[in-house]
C-alpha cells in the first residue's frame, strides 16, 4: 500500500497480467498475418510460443545482449523478406519488435509501452483493409487493449469492470470522434508519395505474358463498383471496362509501350450530350497508374488523371487507396483510328519467332479479300479447331515458341492467350492491332442499385483497325461464348468446385445465399461510400447544407478548418473540465452564497474545513490571511446574524449576497501554506 507510485521497484507482473498483455498483442497482430511475409509470421509465432512456455515453466528470459542481437536480426529479416522499406516491412518489423519487447517486463512501464504499441499496430491495419468487418475487429481490439491498459495499472479493477470502463470511455468518445471526422479538413492527394503496397496484394498487371497463371481470374474480390446515373442499365455485352492498352509486342509478352499522348478534345466534344452515359466508379486500390471506365470513355473527372488517345485513363500516382471518380462514356461506338499517319506502333512485331503463326496469318490473308473477311476467317480458325477455355492451361515447354505452341499444340487457354495470339496474327498479316486489358461483365446488386465488377471479371480483348476506326474483336467469345454470360471463374467449369458452385447457384438455397451476399455487399458498399470515401467534396456539401458557403474562402478554407478543429478540441477540453465542477447541492440563497464565500477563501489560501463553524473560520482567516480579516469579518457577521440570530430581512440577505459577490481576496501571497512550528 505504501510503495511509491512513480517507480515500482521489484515489480513482477503476475502471470495473469502478462498473459493479458500477450493476448492483446496476439489479437492486434492477427489481422496483419494477411499482410506480412511467411517468415515474419513464423518468427512471431515462435516468439509467442516461447512467451507462453516461459510463463508456464519459468524458462530463462532473454538478456539485454540477446535482445539486442535478436532485434537486429529481426530488423534485417523484416527488410529482406519485404523487399525494402515498404509498409509491409514496417508492419512486420512492428509486430516482431513487440513480440521481442515482451521479454522486457520487469517494470509496469514496459508492459504499458507494449500495450500502447499495440494501439499503433492495430490501427495501422487501416492501410490494408477498411471493410466493415475489419473495422469492427479493429474497434474490438481497441476496446480490449484499453481494458488491458487499465487493468495492468489498476489491478483493483478486475478485467470485466475494466472492459466495462473501456466501453464507457470509447462510447463517450464516439460523438467527438464523429465531429472531428466530419470537420477535419481533407487534404487532397496526401502529403507526399505513398509507399505502395506490394503487388501481390492486387494482381492487375501492366503486361500480359503467356506463361503467367490466371491468378487474377480466380479471385472473387471486388475490383470496383459502378453506379450509373439516371437509372441506366447497360446490357451484358456492353460491359467492357477499359483499362490499359498494350501496344508493345515482344513475342509472348505484351507491354504498354511508350506512347503517351492526350486525346484530342475536338473529336470528343462533337458527340451529342444525350448519348453520353454518366456513372460513378469506386475503385479498390490496385497500385497501378490507370483507371477503368466503360468502353468508350470520353471524360473522367479525377484529379491527376488524363485520357490518352488510345482511350486509356492514366493517373499521375498509383491508386493506393480506394478512389471514387465520375466517368462519361458513349456506348457502342468505336474509337477513331489514331495514330492516323503512323501505322508502325500498331504493326510492331519482334523480328523472329513463331514461324507457324506467321505462316498461318500470311496464308489466311492471301485467301481473304478484305480485312474484315480476314478477321472472320481467323475467328473461324479458333472456332473450328476445338480451342478450349481453361484457366489452367498447359504451359509451353521452354525453348518453344509460345504462340505457335498455343495455336497448334495445346489449343487451350484463357482470354490472354486468345487475345494475344489473335493480335499477333493480325499484326503478322499487316493489319494494325492492339490489346486492351480491362474487365468484362459485372453483376448488378439489386439492393444497392450498383454494379459489382470482380477481379475474376478481368479480361483482355483486341482492337483491330477497321478503316478509320479501331474495332473491338473478342476472340475469347468465339471460343467460349459462355464467358459472355458468366465471369471467368464460372465460365471455365473445369474444376469440380466451380461446377458445383454453379449448380449451387441455381438451387433455391443458392438463390437465397446469393441475395444474402448481395445484401452484405450492399452494406459494405454503403459503408465505403458514406464513411470510407468521405471527402473534401462531401465536407463541402455538409457545410453547404449547414448554410456555410465555403466557396467564398476556398483558399482559406483548409486553414480555417484546421484552426476550427484545434479550437474545437480545446473547447471540448475545457468543457470536459467544466462538467467536472461540483453540482451545487440543494440549498437556499444563504447556503449558496456561503459556499461561494468559502470557495473563494479556499482559493485565497485559507484552509477551509467542513467542520469549521463561522467563528472558527474567521480565526483561520486571521491566521492565514490577516489582510482579509476585515472584509471576511463583515460577511461572517452577516452570516451569523442571518443564520443564528434569526435577524434575516430581505435587505440583509441582499447585502450578504452582495458582500460575497464583491469579496475578491486575490491570490495567496507569500506566506506559508503549511506551517511548521519550528525554532
Amino acid at each position, binding site marked *: 500500500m505504501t510503495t511509491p507510485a512513480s517507480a515500482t521497484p521489484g515489480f513482477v507482473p503476475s502471470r495473469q497480467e502478462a498473459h493479458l498483455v500477450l493476448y492483446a498483442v496476439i489479437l492486434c497482430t492477427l489481422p496483419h498475418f494477411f499482410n506480412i511475409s511467411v517468415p515474419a509470421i513464423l518468427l512471431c509465432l515462435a516468439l509467442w510460443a516461447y512467451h507462453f512456455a516461459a510463463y508456464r515453466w519459468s524458462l530463462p528470459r532473454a538478456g539485454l545482449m540477446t535482445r539486442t542481437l535478436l532485434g537486429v536480426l529481426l530488423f534485417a529479416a523484416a527488410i529482406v523478406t519485404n523487399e525494402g522499406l515498404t509498409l509491409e516491412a514496417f508492419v512486420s518489423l512492428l509486430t516482431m519488435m513487440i513480440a521481442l519487447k515482451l521479454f522486457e517486463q520487469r517494470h509496469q512501464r514496459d508492459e504499458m509501452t507494449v500495450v*500502447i504499441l499495440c494501439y499503433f499496430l492495430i490501427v495501422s491495419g487501416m492501410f490494408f483493409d477498411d471493410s466493415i468487418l475489419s473495422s469492427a475487429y479493429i474497434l474490438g481490439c*481497441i476496446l480490449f487493449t484499453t481494458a488491458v491498459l487499465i487493468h495492468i495499472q489498476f489491478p*483493483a479493477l478486475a478485467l470485466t469492470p475494466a472492459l466495462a470502463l473501456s466501453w464507457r470511455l470509447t462510447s463517450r468518445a464516439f460523438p467527438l470522434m464523429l465531429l472531428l471526422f466530419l470537420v477535419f479538413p481533407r487534404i487532397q492527394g*496526401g502529403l507526399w508519395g505513398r509507399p505502395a503496397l506490394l503487388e501481390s496484394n492486387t494482381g492487375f498487371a501492366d503486361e500480359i505474358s503467356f506463361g503467367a497463371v490466371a491468378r487474377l481470374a480466380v479471385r472473387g474480390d471486388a475490383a470496383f463498383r459502378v453506379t450509373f446515373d439516371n437509372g441506366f442499365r447497360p446490357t451484358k455485352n456492353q460491359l467492357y471496362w477499359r483499362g490499359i492498352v498494350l501496344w508493345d509486342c515482344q513475342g509472348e509478352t505484351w507491354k504498354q509501350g511508350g506512347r503517351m499522348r492526350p486525346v484530342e478534345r475536338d473529336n470528343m466534344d462533337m458527340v451529342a450530350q444525350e448519348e453520353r452515359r454518366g456513372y460513378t466508379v469506386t475503385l479498390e486500390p490496385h497500385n497501378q497508374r490507370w483507371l477503368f471506365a466503360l468502353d468508350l470513355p470520353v471524360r473522367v473527372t479525377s484529379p491527376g488523371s488524363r485520357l490518352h488517345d488510345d482511350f486509356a485513363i492514366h493517373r499521375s500516382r498509383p491508386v493506393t487507396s480506394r478512389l471514387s471518380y465520375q466517368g462519361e462514356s458513349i456506348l457502342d461506338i468505336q474509337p477513331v483510328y489514331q495514330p492516323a499517319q503512323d501505322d508502325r506502333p500498331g504493326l510492331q512485331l519482334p523480328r523472329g519467332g513463331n514461324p507457324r503463326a506467321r505462316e498461318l496469318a500470311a496464308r489466311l490473308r492471301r485467301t481473304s479479300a478484305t480485312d474484315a473477311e480476314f478477321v472472320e476467317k481467323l475467328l473461324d480458325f479458333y472456332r473450328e479447331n476445338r480451342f478450349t477455355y481453361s484457366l489452367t492451361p498447359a504451359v509451353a515447354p521452354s525453348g518453344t515458341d509460345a504462340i505457335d505452341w498455343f495455336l497448334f499444340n495445346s489449343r487451350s487457354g484463357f482470354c490472354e492467350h486468345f487475345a494475344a495470339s489473335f493480335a499477333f496474327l493480325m499484326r503478322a498479316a499487316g493489319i494494325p492491332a492492339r490489346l486492351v486489358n480491362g474487365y468484362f461483365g459485372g453483376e448488378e446488386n439489386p439492393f444497392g442499385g450498383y454494379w459489382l465488377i470482380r477481379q475474376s471479371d478481368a479480361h483482355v480483348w483486341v482492337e483491330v483497325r477497321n478503316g478509320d476506326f479501331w474495332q473491338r474483336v473478342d476472340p475469347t467469345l468465339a471460343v467460349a461464348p459462355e464467358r459472355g454470360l458468366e465471369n471467368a471463374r464460372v465460365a471455365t467449369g473445369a474444376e469440380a468446385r466451380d461446377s458445383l458452385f454453379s449448380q449451387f447457384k441455381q438451387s433455391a438455397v443458392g438463390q437465397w445465399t446469393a441475395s444474402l451476399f448481395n445484401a452484405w455487399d450492399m452494406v459494405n458498399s454503403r459503408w465505403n461510400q458514406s464513411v470510407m470515401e468521405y471527402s473534401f467534396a462531401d465536407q463541402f456539401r455538409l457545410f453547404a447544407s449547414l448554410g456555410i458557403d465555403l466557396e467564398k474562402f476556398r483558399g482559406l478554407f483548409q486553414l480555417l478548418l484546421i484552426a476550427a478543429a484545434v479550437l474545437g478540441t480545446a473547447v471540448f477540453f475545457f468543457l470536459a473540465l467544466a462538467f467536472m465542477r461540483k453540482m451545487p447541492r440543494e440549498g437556499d440563497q444563504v447556503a449558496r452564497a456561503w459556499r461561494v464565500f468559502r470557495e473563494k477563501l479556499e482559493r485565497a489560501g485559507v484552509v477551509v474545513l467542513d467542520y469549521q463553524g463561522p467563528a472558527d473560520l474567521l480565526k483561520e482567516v486571521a491566521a492565514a490571511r490577516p489582510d482579509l480579516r476585515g472584509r471576511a469579518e463583515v460577511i461572517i457577521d452577516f452570516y451569523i446574524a442571518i443564520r443564528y440570530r434569526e435577524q434575516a430581512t430581505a435587505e440583509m440577505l441582499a447585502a450578504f449576497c452582495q458582500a460575497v459577490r464583491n469579496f475578491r481576496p486575490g491570490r495567496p501571497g507569500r506566506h506559508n501554506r503549511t506551517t511548521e512550528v519550528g525554532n
Partner: protein
Amino acid sequence: MTTDRIRASRGIGLKNRFFARFAVPAFGVRLLPTGHGVVYVVLLAALLVGSINHNNNLGYLLTFLLSAVLLVSIIFTLRNINGFICQGHGEAAVFAGQALPFSLSLQAKDGPCYGLGLSLDGTSWSRVERVDALSAACQVFMPVNRRGRIEMRRIFAASAFPLGLLRATREIPIVLTGLVYPKPLPTHAGSEKIQGEREENDTFPLHTAGHDFDGLRHYRPGDHPRRIHWKSLAGQRGLFAKVFEEDEGGGAIFSLADMSGRSLEDKLGELCYLMLRADGYGARYGLRLGGQLIAPGRGLSHKSLCLRALALYQSS
C-alpha cells in the same frame, strides 16, 4: 523552510517545470501527461500524418477515436481525483532524520476511486489501490530533519486513472500534526545524582530496575523483557517475572546545562540519547531543561512526556 520545500516539490525536474506552463489550473487540479501519455500523443500524431498521406478515412476515424478516448478519459481522471475525502487523525511522532508517518482515512464520495497516490512533499508517494464508501486507511510519510512540532495543512493527491496517460494532481486541505524529537547523539556526559543513589561502576544498574530482588511472580503482559526470569522458562516451569523492591526515591536527572554539545540542538540530542539509554535499561530518569524540571520516573508515558519536552523546548 517549508515554503521552500513545497516550492521545490512543485518544480521537480525540467520536465515538470516545462509542463507546469500547460497545467490546467481549474478547480485546484493540475493535469499533466505522463511519459506514456507523451508517447501516446506522438503516436496519434504519426497516425494522423499517415491518415492524411493515404487519405484513409478509417485511419482518420481511428485516430480521432483514440484522441477522443484520451480527452474523455480526462473526465474520469478528474472524477477519480475529486471523488474522495481525506481525513487525518492522531498525532505522529518520530525522531529527526526519520520519516513522520501520518495516518489518513480515505472515503469515496460516490463510486470507488482507484490508484491514488498521496504525498506530503510531492516526491515520496503512498499508493492506495482502491477507495470505497467505507473508509480505507493509509499512511503517508514526511521526512523531517528538524525538531519541533509540525503541522501540515495540505496533502497532494495524484492519480493517473484510468489510462495512465494523464496524471491529475490535487491539493487537499487537511490538518495533520506531528512531533519531531531531537535526533539522539551519543555522549559520555553524566547526570545529576539524586539522594539515595548508590555509587556503582556504571551510571546505570545493568540488571535491575530497582535495587533489591524481592522474588518471582507470574508474568503479566507488559512486564519489561529484562525482568523475565529466563531460567525458570528454560526449566520448563513457566514464564515468571522478577520482582524488585522499588526505590521510588532514586534515579538520574539529565540536565541540559551538563551537556557538552556546541549548539542547543546538539545538547538536546545528547540529552535524548542519555534519556533513551536510561529508558532502555529500565532505570528511573528525569530531565532538567533550563528552569523546567521533570521529576524522575519510568515507563512509556514518562518517556513520551520527556521526549515531548525535548521536542518542544524553545521551539515555538
